[in-house]
């Protein structure tokens, strides 16, 4: 499996933990709107930007700061697990 696809899948997995069936659509929107690439083209260098935008967008969906922190932490863990 290409590394980019794995990264995308990992991001979707994290997102689904918080947004359920809407998780994949959420990540696809963040990638295509803010990074301007096809979701399957997501590379390691795009991850910090994705984490920032996805965390910002996620914060608009809940007032629970623990959830926002948890989401950001889990998204960041995708980058650290690559190293």
């Amino acid at each position, binding site marked *: 499996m290409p590394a980019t696809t794995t990264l995308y899948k990992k991001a979707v997995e994290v997102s*689904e*933990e*918080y*947004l*359920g*069936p*809407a*998780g994949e*659509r*959420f990540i696809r*929107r963040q990638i295509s709107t803010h990074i301007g690439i096809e979701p399957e083209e997501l590379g390691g260098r795009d991850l910090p930007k994705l984490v920032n935008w996805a965390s910002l*967008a*996620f914060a*608009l*969906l*809940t007032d629970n700061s623990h*959830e926002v922190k948890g989401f950001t932490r889990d998204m960041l863990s995708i980058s650290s697990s690559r190293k």
Partner: protein
Amino acid sequence: MWIFIALVAVYMGLSLLLPPEYLRKYQMSEASLRLVSLTIILPVGAIQLSALYGFLKFKAYANKIKKTKEGPAFMQIANGLMVLTFGLPINSAASSILNYVARTNTDLQPTAIILKGYIALIFPFIAFLLIAKGAEGLIKTLKRPVSKQWTTFGLLGVIVLTAVYTELIVARAPVQDAKSGYHLPTWLILATIAIPYLYIWCKGLRAAYHIFIYKNRIKGTVYRNALDYLAKGLVIIIFASIIIQVLITVTERITSLSVAPILLIVYLLLGLYAVGFGMVARGAKKLKKIEEV
């Protein structure tokens, strides 16, 4: 949307011109009567508009996800909410017109009351069938199948509800009594009012139960939170519907109360509807936002 607002305006106008009959017997001045009516009409109008808001948000959400595997199920729930929402002002406006007919022509009073009963039934009947079908569709998208059997608690609840509701109908005043809620023989009330209502209450409660099951089985804390509002809102709306029907069966006992308890009952019911539709609207707004950011 404009049709809906026009219907709400028709209801409010008619109700203001023709204050409720049950308030007339308290010998209030015409001004007091209109003022008391206004304290009922305005919240009813606000609830109807909040139901419209919730429906529009939910429909927009269902449209956004129509191509997903949950899409058709959510669309069916949205259609059910549409029937329920549009049924509110149609039912209120028809009820005001029929009240006027009954008041101006006493010969037509039984017909008007019978018609009112069936108009009040038809919209929630269609709405809860659609919502139940949608909720069933949602649990079909789950990987692990959900048992179709009733739980002991659910079955007992249905038995108790049926027994109590039937007892209240059978024990009510004779058909000829003008205060009687239905103006129909008992067997016809049981066959065409009680059984359909019991059926849709069960369907509606089961729909809410299915949404709860769906919510508990899927991932996503934020998504689940939004669905939680939707399911709880539906349960409250169904309970308010049950309470209204129970009150109709005991109309003759209620109308003997003084004005304060009657208004208290009306305000409590309005409060229940407001909370129910408010929760549906909140859940729908959250679900829609998830698909937008």
